[in-house]
């Protein structure tokens, strides 16, 4: 089928305005019509470019294969094969020079067995190192700098008087304004004392302060981060503070306290990571 498709329908498909039935019909046409596929790819690329240009979170997982830095100047050989003809699959390397021919003199051939032995030893050493350190995890992790910023804020400000005194989360949120107005979680066993403004990792953040029944302070830093992927909680000990950081819904969160159980309670109340909450609770 190569007949002309109504542009309004193509537009509705790209902007996700078709009902499921019409969408599947359109996808059938899309499979059969390369020109239509090109048009759809171009408009979808426009959507991604606009959302990226104005800082909107992506609607889908980032397509690293087709990402390009439009400020970079391409080499002439790359310019001759622009990426718009087809997205470069993730993992496929960029154009490179042809490898230099292997030297064929007597010296290199004589060094052959020694080189092979070194390669074997290197591979064994690498495998041993991986086993020793542990295989790298592909799970998303909150940025270490966010955790550091939350720990610094807790160290410097947690024991000072609060700037916004309120036991009512909605009242605090109302005072802090729309960008910072994320109501803190109500945590069993912890009393919300108030909030302070604090420098975060990249922007101004809110530091909510709680007190446990013994009067020990627990802090929760909430920083608005426009482009951040959700990541489960990650725990660390920084200078005697038990700290947990996680991200989600366009915010970065850092809970910190001297008592790990209080951090665990806060993490559990925020619903960030139940397994981590249990792990933190087990620690002294």
């Amino acid at each position, binding site marked *: 089928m190569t007949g002309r498709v109504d542009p309004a329908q193509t*537009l*509705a498909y790209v*902007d996700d*305005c078709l009902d499921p039935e019409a969408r599947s019909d359109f996808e059938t046409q899309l499979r059969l019509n390369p020109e239509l596929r090109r048009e759809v790819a171009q408009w979808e690329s426009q959507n991604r470019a*606009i959302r990226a240009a*104005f800082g909107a979170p992506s609607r889908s997982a980032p397509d690293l294969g087709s990402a390009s830095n*439009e400020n970079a100047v391409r080499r002439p050989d790359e310019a001759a094969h622009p990426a718009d003809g087809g997205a470069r699959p993730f993992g496929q390397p960029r154009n490179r020079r042809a490898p230099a021919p292997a030297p064929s003199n007597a010296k290199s051939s004589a060094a052959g067995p020694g080189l092979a032995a070194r390669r074997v030893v290197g591979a064994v050493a690498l495998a041993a190192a991986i086993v020793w350190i542990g295989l790298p995890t592909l799970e998303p992790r909150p940025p270490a700098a966010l955790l550091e910023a939350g720990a610094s804020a807790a160290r410097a400000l947690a024991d000072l008087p609060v700037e916004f005194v309120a036991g009512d989360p909605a009242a605090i949120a109302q005072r802090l304004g*729309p960008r910072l107005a994320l109501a803190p979680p109500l945590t069993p066993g912890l009393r919300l004392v108030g909030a302070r403004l604090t420098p975060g990792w990249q922007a101004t953040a809110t530091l909510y302060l709680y007190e446990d029944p013994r009067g020990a302070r627990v802090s929760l830093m909430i920083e608005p981060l426009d482009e951040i992927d959700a990541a489960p909680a990650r725990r660390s000990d920084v200078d005697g503070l038990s700290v947990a950081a996680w991200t989600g819904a366009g915010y970065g969160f850092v809970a910190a306290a001297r008592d790990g159980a209080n951090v665990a309670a806060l993490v559990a109340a925020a619903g960030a990571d139940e397994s981590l909450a249990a792990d933190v609770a087990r620690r002294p």
Partner: protein
Amino acid sequence: MPLVREWCDDAGALRRFGLALVRDDRFVFDDVAACALIDKLFRQASLTLVDSPGADRRAARVRAFAQFVRLYRRHARRLAIDEDGGWVETPPSSRGCGSAAVGVRSLPLELREALLLVTLAGFTHREAAEALDLPLAVVVDRLLRARTRLGAHMAASRDAVAAWPQSAHLRIVK
């Protein structure tokens, strides 16, 4: 808490939409004024939920964006009248922006607002038509025109970047 979080998401979306749409600094002076405006629009829009029990959060969101669009249109009209029709929006600056941002900002207001509502704010075509107070067919037509112009701009920008090494004339200074 979920309601507050959704409200923050909507406010962030309106803020991004405003930054992309507005090309005249006199509309909103600074960040504090922008926050106050967005806050007020969402408070007004949330009254929809109180007044009509059937309305959902989506309706309040459309209403807030529609009010923002109306305010900026009114601002543009007023300036045009004050300056005897000679007012045009400030040309977009290309400094520090990618070609997509410059391309969007160089579109006329009526094309820009339709395109940004759909692509940036995530409105459906019907919701965009409702927010812009226009028939659906007009919105679709504007979206097609906006995409055509933006595609041409981005292609020209890519060609310019690719041709840069040949077209640059560097003078040798001894």
